[in-house]
């Protein structure tokens, strides 16, 4: 009974995080919804193990990541995900590009990164996880997490810089 309550609390806390994480991998909202339900069921089945772990949300994220990767390998396809209905961007004068377009582009850049880098930058910069939690999810030490995070951030900046420079040339 106590476990059931804790499970519900954990799932309620993590449903958006899990959804965003899975979405960053699948780029397909319908598929992400389905996978998230599978994640919840998996967490339920091993709820004792998850709830008693050092970092329950990190454990949950690892389950979500693994399920999403497995599904992606099975499906072996990507669909364009449109952020416009979810994001309310403001036009701040980035070379006439909408902010939602920048968010979309950033998401695509992140999605194209190697798996460890993608997970590191998503968990840190989107979800705000601490390094030790990210290390738990990735199954590596914090030094390696920082290395992957550094590479990911540099890649994202490089691609966004190209966009800005392209926009400057157009104008």
């Amino acid at each position, binding site marked *: 009974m106590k476990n*059931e309550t804790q499970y*519900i609390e954990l*799932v*309620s806390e993590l*449903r*958006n995080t*899990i*959804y*965003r994480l899975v*979405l960053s991998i699948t780029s397909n*909202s319908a598929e992400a*919804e389905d996978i*998230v*339900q599978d994640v*919840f*069921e998996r967490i*339920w089945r091993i709820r004792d193990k998850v709830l008693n772990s050092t970092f329950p949300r990190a454990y949950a994220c690892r389950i979500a990541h693994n399920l999403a990767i497995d599904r992606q390998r099975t499906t072996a396809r990507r669909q364009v995900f449109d*952020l416009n209905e*979810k*994001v309310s*961007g403001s036009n*701040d004068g*980035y070379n006439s590009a909408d*902010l*939602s377009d*920048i*968010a979309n*582009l*950033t*998401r695509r850049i992140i999605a194209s990164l190697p798996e460890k880098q993608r997970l590191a930058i998503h968990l840190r*910069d*989107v*979800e*705000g996880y*601490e390094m030790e939690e990210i290390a738990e999810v990735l199954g590596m030490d914090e030094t390696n*997490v*920082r*290395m*992957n*995070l*550094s590479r990911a*951030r*540099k890649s*994202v*900046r490089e691609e*966004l*810089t190209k966009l*800005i420079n392209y926009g400057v040339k157009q104008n």
Partner: protein
Amino acid sequence: MESSRIKILVDSYFEGTTTRDEERELANYLATSDNLPAEYASVKMMFEAMGLLREIEAPKAVQQPRQRLSWRHITTAVTVAASILLAIVITTNKELYSASPAPAIICHVDGLYVSDQAIAEQEARRILGNMNANVNLAMASVDKINILATKR
């Protein structure tokens, strides 16, 4: 914020060595600065994009996990199903639980079921008697044939 401080934060950020507090400090500066150096435009873009991605919420369909079945639910369902099944069995097999005993003798006489013992015995004797008479008649016929055969 001093330019040297910003440079340190940005460099540390891309080395992956900033703390959460330092990242918040950097994010706040990028969001509020009026004279942001051009070299930090992409960094600002990154932080704003990450913020937008963070606002994505799961659809209503995944707001709650699918209903879980507990052992309590399962045992309740099994008990109810068993009770219904038992009720069906009882109502369709009432004669099995009737107070009246089943008849000891049941026989078929001229197309009719007879459960009375005396009547059943009477009919049995009558039939056997008829059979006996027929056998005697048959045997008498056989004797006549033998006699005739012997005389020849």
